[in-house]
């Protein structure tokens, strides 16, 4: 009855899926290797400064981070500039000396990476640097993005 029959293509339709697990596994392995699980919960807001002449830190295990920026309050508001080391905000600037000294004992080639918000004032960074000098952790690094 139907005179106008649809022409059926002879070629098989459908994407070959047999290689899909391989592709997915490859991606999976890539992301597993590059992932660094977030080890700290940031309590300060940090917007990095940008610079051109920067170097990569090759040995990540040597690095200890100090975060300096305005404190995150609830509802997206920002408070005073505070210092955070590991998981806690530092109340007493002079305590940094002991914290860093302990870290230096564990890792004699410690590099302290200062992650400072670009709109901070330098006074608090100076305070932290003085503490680092007292602790004897002299290798520092100012974290910056690459300028584009």
């Amino acid at each position: 009855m139907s005179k106008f029959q649809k022409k059926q293509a002879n070629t098989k339709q459908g994407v070959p899926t047999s290689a899909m697990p391989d592709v997915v596994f490859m991606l999976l392995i890539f992301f597993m290797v590059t992932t660094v699980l977030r080890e700290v919960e940031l309590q300060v807001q940090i917007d990095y400064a940008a610079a051109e002449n920067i170097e990569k830190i090759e040995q990540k295990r040597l690095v200890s981070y100090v975060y300096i920026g305005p404190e995150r309050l609830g509802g997206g508001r920002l408070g005073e500039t505070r210092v955070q080391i590991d998981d806690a905000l530092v109340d007493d600037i002079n305590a940094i000396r002991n914290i860093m000294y302990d870290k230096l004992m564990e890792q004699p080639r410690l590099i302290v990476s200062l992650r400072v918000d670009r709109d901070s004032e330098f006074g608090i960074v100076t305070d932290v640097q003085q503490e680092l000098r007292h602790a004897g952790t002299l290798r520092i690094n100012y974290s910056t993005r690459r300028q584009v």
Partner: protein
Amino acid sequence: MFKKRGRGDADIPMSSLADIAFLLLVFFLVVTTIDVDTGIGLVLPPIPDDTTPPPPVRERNLMNILVNAQGMVLINEQPAAIPTVRERVKAFIDNHGVDPDLSESPDDAIVSIKTDRRTPYNVYIDMLDEVMGAYEELRHQASMDRFGVPYSSLEQGSERRAEIQEMYPKKISIAEPDEG
């Protein structure tokens, strides 16, 4: 004689493999943070002790850079725009005793950086970036002259790299902060 009995299929079902892999993939995609692990490296000066006086430095071998509270850069008390800092630092380091006001040799040249408590951090970083850029350009030039290859292509920890670093050592000093 001992006829093998027919066994059931020994295959592991593979069809769900892709699903499992996808699930893991999505997990790692979500938790991945591509971290910024680049920055400007610096070595702080140790706390001076009272028994040993600081080594004498001749006036001409010292370049004082001050970034004040208004975000102005002053080189030896004279205001300077940030883009000009690089050339000034280069001229200062690479003087080799020609100009009596500039350094005697790259080995003697010390760049001293001083800040105020209210200095904006990003201005400080911009200025430091320029100083680092000056050293980088001088090292690049020296490497091209001596080995014919750019400094950045010299391997980390290689003899050639150490030689260039010795020619232009980074002597950047952070000045003692003012009291109060």
